[in-house]
């Protein structure tokens, strides 16, 4: 989810707390273990502190000491003359856990966990952030939630965002269906930000016409930092899920980088647009559905699905893995497409240039793919705008090869939708094509409003004047 969460996964013995090689040898020579308080005489002077575990991804040359001042330092194994144990103090790390107070007047919200860090604690061994997730832990770190709704949590997986895939989408869809059946007023899904928009798209297709909000939430800046967006995202997502009027799959993340308001993005139109800034999630080619702040949901969009009291929903957790997304580049050779066909792929989503173009070089490959029954769809690298293949001759030629344009569907969304559609309809090519070209959850729109594309250009005087007046 954030940079801090990456980097675990080595399988060295846990008993040595990340130490191995030369550093571990020095520890053994002097009978020292992790959590020993010690005095180290070294060629660089003497040091006193508490021996901490070491990140498994760091080298095997240094010992990590925590000094009384709170600082950590590294001592290289070959500088050590002697280590003398002076005490032993094992740290107990715990997020303050309280029973989550239930208020019958508040709505009931189900929080499904996928492994992202909404609330978190630090892990010594990896130096990484470990999620806090049980209701008690959540209440301990974001107690404001108790004012908003009664939360029940269910941890489904413990995977980082980049490891989310169709198996997880399918489980999530089923679980959302159960939560709806069980009478919850809203569902929240804690998710890493990297692939949040993929999952949002998948759930938009797998969970159709839910009667309650399904709100995805995460944190772009890790929740172990005081300035994290995690708590605010969680609070606003809880509002949207528990009290909000919009019964759709939504992504609830910071609007500006300032801690000011959150945006509710439609699951099929949202995309992560920056590797690290808080305002990374943007609605493309349209405007967000709503804003949410301080317990108030302000609708922005003219079309949205209202919350219903019934429990009707269509859950279709289907998937076909034999779909790929190909990003076209000038000079692309036909064998790249041929090899996909040879590998048995049944659907290819192309992200073409401009209005939806690829070079002539790959035409024969597209023709062969089409003849082999592979579904071919065209989307845009430009991300904004519509595929329009009738304007230039190139486009018309490509259409004739059997490539189907997908209007203003975002390439990743098209990939998700095709995987789902092929999973749903198997060999019925017409049904797949019909499904693909029919908007189900806003993934294609009839029109692009003038403010659906607002990437302001920095440096331009009038833009700078505007930026001075609004919170970044």
């Amino acid at each position: 989810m954030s940079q801090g969460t990456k980097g675990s996964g080595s399988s060295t013995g846990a008993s040595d707390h990340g130490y191995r090689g030369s550093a571990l040898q020095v520890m053994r020579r002097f009978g020292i273990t992790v959590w020993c308080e010690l005095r180290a005489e070294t060629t660089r002077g003497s040091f006193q502190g508490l021996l901490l575990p070491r990140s498994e991804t760091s080298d095997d040359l240094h010992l990590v000491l925590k000094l009384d001042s709170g600082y950590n330092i590294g001592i290289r194994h070959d500088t050590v003359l002697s280590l003398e144990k002076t005490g032993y103090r094992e740290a107990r790390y715990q997020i303050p856990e309280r029973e989550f107070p239930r208020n019958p007047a508040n709505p009931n919200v189900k929080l499904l966990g996928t492994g992202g860090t909404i609330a978190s604690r630090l892990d010594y061994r990896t130096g990484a952030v470990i999620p806090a997730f049980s209701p008690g832990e959540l209440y301990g770190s974001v107690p404001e939630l108790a004012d908003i709704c009664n939360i029940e949590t269910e941890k489904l997986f413990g995977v980082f965002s980049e490891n989310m895939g169709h198996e997880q989408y399918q489980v999530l869809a089923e679980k959302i269906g159960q939560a709806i059946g069980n009478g919850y007023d809203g569902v929240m899904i804690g998710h890493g930000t990297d692939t949040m928009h993929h999952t949002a798209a998948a759930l938009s297709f797998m969970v159709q016409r839910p009667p309650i909000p399904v709100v995805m939430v995460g944190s772009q800046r890790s929740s172990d930092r005081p300035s994290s967006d995690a708590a605010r995202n969680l609070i606003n997502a809880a509002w949207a899920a528990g009290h909000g009027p919009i019964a759709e799959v939504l992504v609830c993340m910071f609007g500006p980088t300032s801690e000011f308001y959150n945006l509710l993005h439609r699951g099929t139109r949202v995309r992560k647009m920056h590797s690290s800034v808080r305002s990374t999630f943007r609605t493309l080619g349209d405007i967000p559905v709503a804003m949410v702040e301080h317990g108030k949901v302000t609708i922005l969009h003219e079309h949205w699905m209202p919350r219903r009291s019934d429990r009707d929903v269509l859950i279709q957790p289907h998937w076909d893995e034999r779909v790929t997304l190909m990003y076209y580049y000038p000079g692309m050779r036909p064998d790249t497409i041929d090899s996909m066909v040879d590998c048995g792929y049944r659907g290819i989503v192309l992200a073409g240039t401009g209005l939806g173009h690829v070079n002539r070089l790959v035409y024969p490959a597209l023709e062969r793919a089409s003849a082999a029954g592979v579904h071919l769809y065209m989307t845009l690298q430009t991300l904004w705008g519509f595929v329009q293949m009738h304007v230039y001759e190139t486009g018309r030629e490509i259409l004739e090869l059997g490539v189907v344009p997908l209007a203003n569907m975002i390439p990743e969304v098209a990939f998700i939708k095709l995987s789902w559609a092929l999973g749903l309809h198997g060999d019925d090519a017409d049904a797949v094509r019909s499904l693909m070209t029919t908007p189900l959850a806003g993934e294609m729109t009839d029109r692009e409003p003038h403010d659906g594309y607002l990437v302001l250009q920095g440096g331009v005087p009038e833009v700078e004047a505007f930026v001075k007046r609004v919170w970044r």
Partner: protein
Amino acid sequence: METDSYASGGWVLLLRVLSEQVYMSEHAAPVPDRGIRPPGDLNPRQDPPLDFIDRPLHQMEPSDYQVLGYISGLEVHQQLLTDSKLFCRCPAGRKATEVDAAVLRRMRPTLSELGEYDGTALMEFKTRKEVVYLLERSTVCTYEMDDAPPFHIDEAAVRVAIELALLCNMSLVSELHVMRKQYLDGSIPTGFQRTAMVGLTGSIPFRVPELGVDRELRIRQLSLEEDSCREVSDVGHRITFRTDRLGTPLTEVVTEPELLTPLELQAGGRLVARVARATRKVRRGPGAARQDVNVSVAGGRRIEIKGIHHHRGLPLLAHNEAFRQLNLLRLRAELQRRELDPSALALPDPGLPWELSDLIMDATDLLANTGHRPLRRAVERGETACAVRLPGFGGLLDHPVQPGATFVRELAERVRVIACPPHRPFLTYSDTGHADLSKRHWRQLARSLGAAAGDAVVVVWAAMDDAATAAREILTRAAEAFVGVPAETRQALRDGTTGFERILPGPDRMYPDTDTPPVPISDSVVAEVAGGRGETPWAREERYLRLGLGEVAARRLASSPWADLFDELAPAAGSPARQLSTALELRLPFHSRKHGLSRADVLPSAARLEPLVRALEQGALLPYALHPALDEALGDPDRPVGRILASYRPLSADDASPAATIQAVVSRSHLLDGKPPEVVLRWAMGEVLRPWRGRLDPHQVERALADALGARVTTAEAMT
């Protein structure tokens, strides 16, 4: 850019959870063993000399401070002269004047690595501040705004830090571990400062003849960290910062608390600054070096005074803090004499305090028609006035604490910082605040609160949430009077007193930075830095003493920016060295002022000045001509030195032209007839030497003049 007030009641809940963790224990007298504690927070002596007769700074002797049990130490922050900031490639040292954009954030405390919340962090969360950052594009990028992870640590800064650690004879770590030190006051947008320990346990020679000091000053630690934002304003619940300075690399050198008088503290600060400058890679100018001072007296505890920009004000600040502690200890003794108990001030769970305790009441209605204008305006604004009874504290709010400040200021400061009332004044009290409220109002308050004659009553007003916080803080601070000196960080005020800034943070606020890998400090890098390291001020001084400079001159030269220039010019030992050092010290600052340049920028090349020095050594330039010749060489950089030297070629008083000058002056000397001869001679000397600007030997001129004037007098007498 208006935002709602942060109205959710959730923060109260968070505080409850958190405060059960730490906050109460921070404030209660016995601090339970919660693992690692900062060493030496309490003064080693616990016998306050309560009967000490207070004296101003200039009347205090070192032995007086010994009686007080005074100890102090320094944390010197020095910005390093690097091209870029520590963890991003924004330019360092550039000051922003424009505002291109603004960002608003809020801070929440997080758990430390050892599973604890830090008391300071909790206090700062209580203040519920909105933090606004003003951005100027050329000085800030997404990293500083915590919108991007850190880039690689600036190598140049690491090397300067290593060099400084070597100059302080410190034990170097083998690997830098970047840590996060929490600051929830908003001064750093991440909510923490990235900082890494570089060296431990060093010492530097501490010689100050005028204070009778000749020993080692032990250095506890040296860390490399990023600088914080500059504060622009702090009004109510909004604090505003500039981000230009943010991220500038700086070293923090922490001395042991072994500076035993305020003057020693000042000398120690100057010494550490000089050692830093010996690297020649540190920034100078306003704000480039700032120190925090730690002071305690017997019975007291370490109080940190933050962000002092200059050495001049250090002694008075430290002196006043020493007496503030002594006065708080006297207050404690009085509370004990009155047999009061802090548990009487305890307040149960968070909630509206006037509903929880009979010590506090909502007095808004009662005081709605008050004649006290600030309070009446507050009530008109819809604020809440609440009255707090402090049982047994009658008269103690006027107990003197600092020059011009009594104990009530300690209460008011807590309220100001933590409850953030936007209007001043925001409180009054029964001891001397009688004039503010009518007698009838005080009587009614006393009756409603059940206050007896020996009690004190404080009335505080602010928006309801803030008034609740304020009432709690008043009780909390009053309860801390039983401890004596509560652990605080204080800010230096212009008048030499200090104000409350925050609760003194502990090591709980440190945790490892998960965004940066450890940075090994290899032997080869250390050797490289050691090979090129600057000469320490004390080594330089020694060298200058051997060159024949006086003690004071040697010290001043050693710490001057032109010390390297002096070394390059390599004057001969004895007079030339002395004359050159004096000339540089007098003329270079003059030129820097004249051209508005920094002293470092005005420095000429050694090649430019070298002919002057050689001529001086060979007698081809008289010492008297050195200053004007230097002025010309500096003031007119295009003029060849040879020509300058030619124009200052020494002359003999017997040479034709000077002799003619002497003749002319002597012939005009009758105008001074009747004046004493030495006055006439002094006048004549000036008249002769001035036009020849150092080219004549004054002794020779004096002899010639004395002869000529004597002859004229004799002739005149003969004529009469």
